[in-house]
């Protein structure tokens, strides 16, 4: 008994330093900003800052816009990443090898730079439009539009998601797929009834992290997004930096956090379930 106590103490001692840091630089600021977000104009406390999020027309459209961009980005990212992961899992050849070796690089490219490159590439007079001009196509507006934000999100998130999914797919033994084919399942059926359910958990993980990454993003939406409606990250910055309404910015941040928490809940639940199953 005392030994388990001792181990427990040791565990806590090992965890405390990093948790303390987390506490100081994350938990306290979150708590502070929550308190801040409850403060109204008069200095009292109420939910007026949150009310504003839903009553102000511009803010409402920002929220809807953010959700729309986030969900569209998530869906495309997940589909493309899945396709890529499936491709890397089941194909061979030099091209695939090359992709396997390099697809993770964008994860490490600084966000500003990639965004900057995308602006220069996809702008109205950017490189792409110059190429398309040759074949007589005018590029639709991408930069300063939600398309730009979505494309940037794809650029940033596909490699990461593909990485998660490809390691999940690597964990599915061939014989599981072959036995499905063997009993007569066609390709689509194999995918939807075997491959997908077996990588579903990772899919959830990927969805969680893409969602969290996109919904609070700032750099890309700021540089390539439209003036209005704005992503919440941009709006938050504007409210804080330009309008100097710290409380309102905190409310936006906290609201975003609540949205993330929903997915975070499912993520944690599935991870904990797995843990208990493992023990």
């Amino acid at each position, binding site marked *: 008994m005392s030994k388990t106590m001792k181990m427990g103490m040791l565990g806590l001692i090992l965890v405390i330093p990093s948790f303390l840091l987390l506490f100081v*630089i994350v938990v306290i600021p979150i708590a502070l900003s929550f308190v801040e977000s409850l403060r109204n104009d008069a200095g009292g406390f109420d939910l007026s800052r949150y009310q504003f999020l839903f009553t102000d027309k511009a803010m409402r459209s920002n929220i809807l816009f953010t959700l729309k961009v986030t969900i569209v980005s998530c869906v495309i990212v997940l589909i493309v990443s899945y396709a890529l992961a*499936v491709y890397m899992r089941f194909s061979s050849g030099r091209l695939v090898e090359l992709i396997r070796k390099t697809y993770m690089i964008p994860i490490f490219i*600084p966000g500003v730079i990639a965004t900057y490159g995308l602006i220069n590439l996809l702008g109205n007079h950017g490189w792409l439009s110059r190429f398309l001009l040759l074949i007589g196509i005018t590029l639709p507006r991408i930069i300063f539009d939600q398309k730009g934000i979505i494309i940037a999100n794809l650029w940033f998130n596909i490699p990461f998601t593909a*990485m998660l999914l490809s390691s999940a797919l690597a964990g599915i033994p061939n014989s599981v797929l072959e036995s499905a084919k063997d009993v007569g399942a066609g390709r689509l059926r194999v995918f939807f009834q075997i491959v997908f359910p077996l990588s579903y958990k990772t899919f959830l993980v990927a969805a969680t992290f893409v969602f969290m990454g996109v919904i609070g993003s700032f750099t890309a939406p700021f540089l390539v997004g439209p003036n209005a409606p704005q992503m919440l990250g941009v709006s938050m910055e504007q409210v804080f930096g330009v309008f100097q309404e710290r409380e309102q910015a905190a409310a936006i941040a906290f609201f975003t956090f609540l949205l993330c928490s929903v997915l*975070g809940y499912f993520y944690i639940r599935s991870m904990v379930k797995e843990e208990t199953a493992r023990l």
Partner: protein
Amino acid sequence: MLWYFRAIGTRKIIEFLLLIVFIVFFVSPLLNLVVLAFSGKWTYPDLLPHQWSLQWWKFVLQEDEIAKSIGLSFLIAALVTALSIVLCIPAAYAFARIRFPLSKVFLFSFLLTHAFPKMGLYVSIAVLFYKLGLMNTLLGVVLVHMINVLMFMTWIPTAAFRNVHSAQEESARDVGASPFRVFRSITLPMALPGIIVASVFTFLNSLDEAQGTFLVGIPDYRTMPIVMYSIIADFPGSAGAVFSIILTAPTIILLLAAQRFVSADVMSSGFQLK
């Protein structure tokens, strides 16, 4: 989307085309920057610059601020990496090996760093740091950089430690190694790939961090990305492109150096905590 499922002939073609689109999508923004960086005159609608030049390289490299910011960025990144190793690896070991009360709560609390929007977090942190006198200090900057990496630095090594089979540790105990020796000679080296991946990730992430630095480190701590921001803001395309290349170079070099360790499995295991 399910390329591999298609019939052979057309399948190959479609597959190839899609791959090309895919590669172009990821490569062209970077390639565009490279071309831009060496361009002198490049007006619409020319496909390539009609005049190449190193003018912006000269301009960017002449700024002594740039060299300074690169040095500073590396210093900060090294500090962040070192500090997070010191703080997070013991925690990761505890999560992987020791049962203690609330361990899951602690473990998943690191998700907060990703669930709360960065912008909002930085703003609150600034308020806190003013009170703590951490504004415009090296420590303040380092701490802010750690927000982004705490989760990676804890979760990936946790998974790595978990993958060290306990029989491997026990057999070392068995041949006479003390618990500490076991950790040093067996557990740690075996979990090293995970720790390296996490560290590389931390290092690069710190090199790239801009928003938090801007809020906490200005004016004294002008790191590469901060300079990059002002260059994007104040100079035309080519200068930004040059600087982008300078900024990306360490990333690529470090990645190539650590390529052996950076594998999808190691990284993604950190998110699944199996």
